[in-house]
């Protein structure tokens, strides 16, 4: 395809498609009109022409598939509309299997109170952290705090100092309140750069940066005696390891964490928790235990709410179809298609 042909092809496409093509290519593409958008895309194509062309072809293919799947009758030329017979049957089949809104909304409510029983992964993590470093990678809301609290309690019972770090001062404050409630105000202290509250308490809360600084001071001989009794270091939100600016602080902290202290890394689900565990094993004195699971404790359902107030399930399935992002609910698919057709080309005022 030469540039003229490419431009020709771009001109023939609806603006929605161009916007989709522009995502990740053109900064603030949603502010551009069709003509300008094509200009920008052509400009961009000098960087990766082949990529642009193949994405364009894919989108055009998708567009056809989409329009054939029976959603919009108004916008389509009759030729395409007539060709729809076969795909339409497939579509109606899947519509049969798709979950209905009332099924989707079923079961909302508050469970009756249950006695607290730790999950197996929580028990596993707690018994492991007595002996070794532990990396926990579980979905948000699973109950990592319980592990942190119980591990801290046991270490304190053994007269060990516990340090708990969070990435943000705001989180440190919340945890300070929460842990003070659990262990009593005397047992919990908080350290910031310029302030210590209850600095002699056995459980100390601070940001990871502050701990890193303490460890550097200790390494250069300005030993805070308390590091000798350090038994457990809990690094919450360890997925911050991947933070472009601050991730390095987690690495420094882990590298310099005293070997007699156990490390407990709490993290939301990440793609390579085994790598983190293997890394810890390779540099620390114990074999790091990885505790992970990907299943949410409270099941999640996804929905689609149209600007006109209509609510439908987002996927055909009741729960999230993990690994199958394209299993959209036919109704959601149609509504969103209409939304894109109507809103994007007009270049309406944006919120």
């Amino acid at each position, binding site marked *: 395809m030469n540039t003229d042909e490419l431009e020709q092809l771009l001109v023939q496409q609806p603006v929605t498609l161009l916007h989709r093509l522009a995502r990740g290519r053109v900064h603030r593409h949603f502010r551009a009109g069709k003509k300008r958008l094509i200009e920008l895309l052509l400009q961009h194509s000098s960087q990766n022409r082949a990529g642009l062309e193949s994405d364009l072809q894919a989108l055009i293919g998708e567009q056809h598939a989409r329009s054939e799947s029976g959603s919009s009758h108004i916008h389509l030329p009759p030729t395409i509309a007539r060709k729809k017979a076969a795909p339409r049957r497939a579509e109606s089949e899947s519509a049969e299997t798709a979950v209905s809104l009332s099924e989707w909304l079923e079961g909302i409510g508050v*469970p009756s109170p249950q006695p607290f029983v730790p999950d197996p992964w929580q028990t596993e993590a707690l018994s492991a952290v007595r002996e070794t470093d532990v990396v926990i990678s579980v979905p948000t809301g699973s109950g990592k705090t319980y592990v942190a609290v119980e591990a801290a309690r046991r270490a304190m019972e053994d007269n060990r100092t516990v340090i708990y770090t969070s990435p943000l001062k*705001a989180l440190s404050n919340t945890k300070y309140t929460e842990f003070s409630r659990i262990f009593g105000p005397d047992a919990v202290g908080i350290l910031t750069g310029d302030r210590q509250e209850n600095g002699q308490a056995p459980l100390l809360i601070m940001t990871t940066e502050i701990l890193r600084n303490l460890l550097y001071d200790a390494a250069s001989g300005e030993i805070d005696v308390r590091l000798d009794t350090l038994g457990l270091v809990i690094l919450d939100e360890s997925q911050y390891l*991947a933070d472009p600016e601050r991730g390095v602080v987690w690495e420094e902290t882990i590298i310099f964490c005293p070997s007699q202290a156990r490390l407990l890394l709490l993290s939301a689900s990440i793609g390579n928790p085994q790598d983190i565990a293997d890394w810890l094993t390779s540099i620390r004195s114990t074999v790091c235990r990885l505790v992970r699971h990907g299943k949410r404790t409270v099941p999640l359902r996804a929905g689609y*709410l149209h600007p006109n107030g209509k609510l439908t399930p987002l996927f055909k399935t009741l729960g*999230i179809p993990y690994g199958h992002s394209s299993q959209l609910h036919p109704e959601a698919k149609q509504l969103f298609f209409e939304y894109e057709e109507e809103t994007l080309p007009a270049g309406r005022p944006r919120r």
Partner: protein
Amino acid sequence: MPPSIHPVDLITALRHKHLTPAIVFLTSRRACDEAMETFDHADLVLPPARQEAIAVALERITVQHPSIAEHPLIPIVKRIGIAAHHAGHLPSWKIAIEELMRQGHLDAVFATTTLAAGVDFPARTVVITQSSIRKSRDFTDLTIGEVQQIAGRAGRRGKDHVGFAIVTPSPYIDLTVLTKGLTGQPEAIDSQFTISYPMVLNLLKAHPHEQIQGILAKSFAQFQLNQRAELLEQKLDALHVQMEPFGPRVCTDWITQWHTFDHARRHRHTRHQTHRAESPEISARLPFLTAGRVIGLSRGRGIVLRQYRSKGQKNSMLTVLRSDSAVTECPVTSVKEVYDRTYECAETPAYPWCSTDTFDRLSHHLEELPSRLPVLPILVSTGIDPLPDAIVQSLGDFPCPTCPSRPACHKDFMTASRLRQEQQRHTKSIQALRTSLWHRFQERVEVLQKFGYLTPATQLTIEGDWARLIRIDHSLLITELIRAEAFTGADPSLLAGILASLAHDDDRPGAFPRISPGLSSLLGQVRKLAESLSPYEDPPLLRADVAALVERWVADPSLTWIGLCRLTTMAEGDIYRLLARTLEFLSQVQALKSTHPGLADSASQAITLIRRGVLEELP
């Protein structure tokens, strides 16, 4: 159709389907505030009992955080049971909203996605209206991990049977990003390890230079680099096997030899002028003078460790290993012979340009070389006007035309040469992966030596010994300012103002409070220095307005929080963060008590002065 659902309709729909409490994630603080405003005239009023409950809960929170007592948003929150929560708010207000939500008093919160990243704040439902977020000035698509962090707020353990993540379109939405995010595997974490000046100083304070490489090797960065290197090593092993049929023939290095020969043949008629400044004899030699090559010099032999160009004269130079493990530099012109013998050489980016192993091995080889070595015939291009005769003649110098392995070389050259190139490429990449951290460390060391924080023997100087305590962004600029005595005699408010302009990295605009002449001239000095340091450290924004704002807060203890907020258009939350960051920087300066008592004292005065009102409430 409206580009997105009206907030009142949204909440009505959620309430109607029992999908509250909900967190509605919006693209910006503005969007959150505007969404709240749409309720001003809506008749979505809570029953009196619930309003009362909110009032009671808020009062309890106010005991600990008095600053929220008069918060302008209290009436609306009470009336409708809906609140906004974003970085423009004071931490105490955000804590109050979080607490109300936890206690179940609110039906919905409009929030920005920053909330998803760090606050323990669950609900029955989350509403997602965007598929990209603003990250340092640019919009980027949400990652799978981020989508799941956001969706993860839905469904409270013990309070919900099910959680709901509801997508509602806005012009900022790409549905595939969200469906992929909801159904996909979160991304793998990649190390973001960087080597900062304070890291170098602190490492060298505690460990001798020769141990540092081992410490850097403990980083997750190196762990991941090693993973990549191992993959390449496997490829390299496979290449070695593929290379087996192409081992030494009549000449050891037949591939290079054939390459040159072939090149000469092809260019018999179209010889180009060489662009090098050197004579053709020298140019022709260069491709052969690579690491590991045995050469003859006027006094004895040596093995090439590296080829480079001298900075001044741009002559081609060699670093050569001589007998008794001496390493010398010599111009290529002094090479008498190039021998047809090379040894493997694991190159490194710094003196002595090869690994210790290689160095020992090469020294050994050098002592053991036989007295007679085959000389590599090198075709010399004659330059400007090639005479066919000369070429024919020089082709005659090659053993190739009559060599018994000629047909084999001819047949195998393409494959062998491609394989060898791949080998060389992989070897180089592996080398780089294994040594890049160390290399970066060395670069930092050189800068610190240049500025006198480290001795040539990489020990901390007196300056380095205190400078290592400044462990924040822009550390080089701060320590250089201290050394330049920029702060000498400066009172606490000036110091705080300057540090504020260093600490504040947000480019959201703020209106300009009047700036004092003292601060203005000091800021000018800081700018100049920052600019001169820019090859070594990215300069900070150095915003005068934030400097002036903090200066005022410190200089005028009678200034109230409300009064301070009136001086600027910055949001309360931003002012708070600015002051909190300034405190962090000040506390680092305060640590210099023993070497800079006056400065440290000024810093601790500034800290005391900053910590008042709202800034007293939280540790």
